[in-house]
């Protein structure tokens, strides 16, 4: 993306198309990162069901069925973070800086809330069973933990982009970082659905 100064000094003969966000290189890069990450989760979840369909009891004796209510709440909070992010992304295209900053902040806080709630849930289940107990436990902790780590990355990304939004780095023309972050936030948010369904599947 060119800086305005370079555009002014440019000879008229040079074709210059105004950049459109959805076609930016960074956008493509993020789409591909998400593709490879989504594949990782597909493989993790496939491993879960591969082992499950070979096991006589699931969860094995000695481990209770997972609870549904609490993870539902946690993941619901995470899913909700998509909405303000979407509003923020729309806002930046229209050059509405205040709404952008507000949306980023709300999304950030919701993800943070999920992160804290999930930490608490981890702590609770840690008291009832440990990942080293058997393969069921290892798989559940690995899949949910991997998702949790990805949310952590999303939080850091949001924090960084937010900082730049408050510094006034974005407007209707310069907004690729916002779009890229939005893609990632949608991804970790939507990922909550398969991760949640997998982890509570024995209780369904």
């Amino acid at each position, binding site marked *: *993306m*060119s*800086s305005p100064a*370079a555009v002014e*000094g*440019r*000879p008229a*003969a*040079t*074709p*210059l*198309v*105004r*950049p*459109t966000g959805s*076609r*930016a*290189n*960074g956008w*493509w*890069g993020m789409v*591909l*990162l998400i*593709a*490879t*990450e989504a*594949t*990782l989760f*597909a*493989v*993790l979840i496939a*491993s879960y069901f*591969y*082992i499950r369909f*070979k*096991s006589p009891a699931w969860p*094995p004796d000695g481990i209770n069925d997972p609870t549904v209510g609490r993870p539902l709440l946690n993941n619901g909070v995470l899913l909700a973070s998509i909405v303000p992010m979407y509003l923020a992304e729309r806002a930046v295209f229209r050059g509405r800086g205040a709404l952008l900053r507000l949306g980023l902040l709300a999304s950030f806080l919701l993800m943070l809330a999920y992160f804290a709630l999930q930490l608490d849930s981890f702590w609770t289940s840690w008291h009832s069973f440990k*990942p*080293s*107990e*058997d*393969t*069921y*436990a*290892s*798989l559940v*902790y*690995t899949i949910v933990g991997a998702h949790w780590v990805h949310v952590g990355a999303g939080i*850091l990304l949001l924090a*960084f982009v937010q900082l*730049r939004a408050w510094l006034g*780095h974005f407007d209707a023309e*310069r907004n*690729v*970082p916002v779009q890229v972050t939005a893609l990632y936030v949608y991804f970790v948010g939507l990922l909550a659905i398969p991760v949640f369904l997998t982890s509570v599947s024995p209780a369904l």
Partner: protein
Amino acid sequence: MAVNVERLERIWFEPTGLKTFVTTVNHKKIGKRYLVTAFAFFVAAGAEALLMRTQLARPESGVVGPKTYNELFSMHGVTMIFLFVTPMLSGFGNYFVPLQLGARDMAFPRMNAFSYWVFLGSGIFMYSSFLFGEAPNDGWFNYAPLSQREYTPSLNIDFYNLGLLFLTISTTAGAVNFIVTIFKMRAPGMSINRIPLFCWAILAQSFSVVFALPALSAANIFLSLERKFHFHFFSPGDGGDPLLWQHLFWIFGHPDVYIIFLPAIGIVSAIIPTFARRPMVMHTWLALATLTTGFIGFGVWVHHMFATGLPQITMTFFAAASLLITIPSGIQIFGWCATLLTGAPLIRTPLLFVLGFIVVFVIGGVTGVMFAVIPFDQQVTDTYFVVAHFHYVLFGGAVFPIFAGLHYWWPKLTGRMFSEPLGQVSFWIFFVGFNLTFFPMHIAGLLGMPRRVYTYPDGLGWGIYNLLETIGAFTLALGILLVVVNLLGSLRFGALAGPDPWGGETLEWATTSPPPEYNFAAIPLVRSNSPNWDRADREEDVHRLERNELVLAEGHEALATTVLDADADQVLEMPPESPWPFVLALAIAFGFAFLLVGHYLVAGLGAGLALAALAGWHSQTPMETA
């Protein structure tokens, strides 16, 4: 005109010296580094192979013991697959994809530098295991249960797991970079049907990387968690299944065969039209066959597991899918042959290596089809027949094209011509050496010789074949040595190559040898599949430079185009030299080193350093260019 070129020279100038060595983001420097580093790993893995062949030359020989032998064949495989072939082809890709596309650089130049440093770091990481006498020793596919903590408690396997997780960062980042570059950085007019076949191959390979490597990563994460934190995934006693490793590994591993093979055939498709002196027959079909091969490659992994006792229906399905691969492979082989037969082939060293490839690869393909026949597969599983097959496919399918590419592009890389007679002699020694090494392995395998044995008793009838193989291996090494002598000698004695010594078809031949930092003074406009044969268009480039059209000399600029039609889309301000890719790679290496030895808090510090490096990276220039 001269004014514009001067401006470009000034804008794209990089000083020589240590600082630039660390901070450069130029795709040609990075490409050359990939080539040199990967070749160094090739020499290391070749030395390991020669040691093994020396040990096996005679029955009951004692050159190396069983423990060392296990490490040798494991590291030979790991190095050849992960540290030589893939990065070597990335090196060609890095150097020549932007040139063939008429671009100034890759889409993400700093990420490109980062990929290289991570590749180098992970290679050093894995090879440092030899210093501790604990190199990976469970073969390149590292099967559980042998790789589990109970059976291999020392660090050998951890070097493998963590080293490959580390390397995956590099390979994935590189693949993303290639895809976006090929989608977005093409010269105006290079619509999707005009993308050179080498770039199609790199594109198909990169998509395979994006979707295949996560399976390897998952397997390595599982095994690391098992070994380091007492998780369970692969022990039946704890509800796991060792076959899970095999499935995950081969879901990655078979596509990886194409990750290795696709760019190599891309080189073949780049060379054949030039020396046949006509455009490729069925250009579009070949491009589609490349993609189809990559796609079908995801549906055949179970054919590596026919001897593990899977249900009949599963095996039948995967046997059928494996046979399907012959269709796109056949299209490519016939396309190449038809191009050569209808052209006026000029036999030069690069084409000789390509012809050698076709012969050897067809033999490897035929034994491959034999494996799809399940009873035959079960008969020869884990014998030297398998070793013979995959060397015909991988050495034939990747190393022959790599050597073809080295000769083909050497004049572009260095500006010098190698000696053609010496090139042809070295090819024949290489070709004879290769077949003498690997053909007798078919027979030894059919006679029942298992792979991965460090020695064998006398009187089984294997001795003569093994001796021939060892003689072949040293002949092959001599051929490779001659190639190296020829190429390096050309730097001193070679004639100047000029921009286009072969009459090449694609755009890399439209600029000087070696190309300037900015590749093309005026961004070329493309109107056919063979842009460098469109003389009028290339002359027009010169006139456009005079008229200052599409020169982009206002800054450190490159042109992005639309994905399908390659219409000019936006002018990108490319990032300058940066220390952050190196620093980030260093921080990650630090983290992995401490994961290895089990200091997790210090490893966490590495993660913190990596985050700081990322913040520095993104603060350096406006992120809109990232």
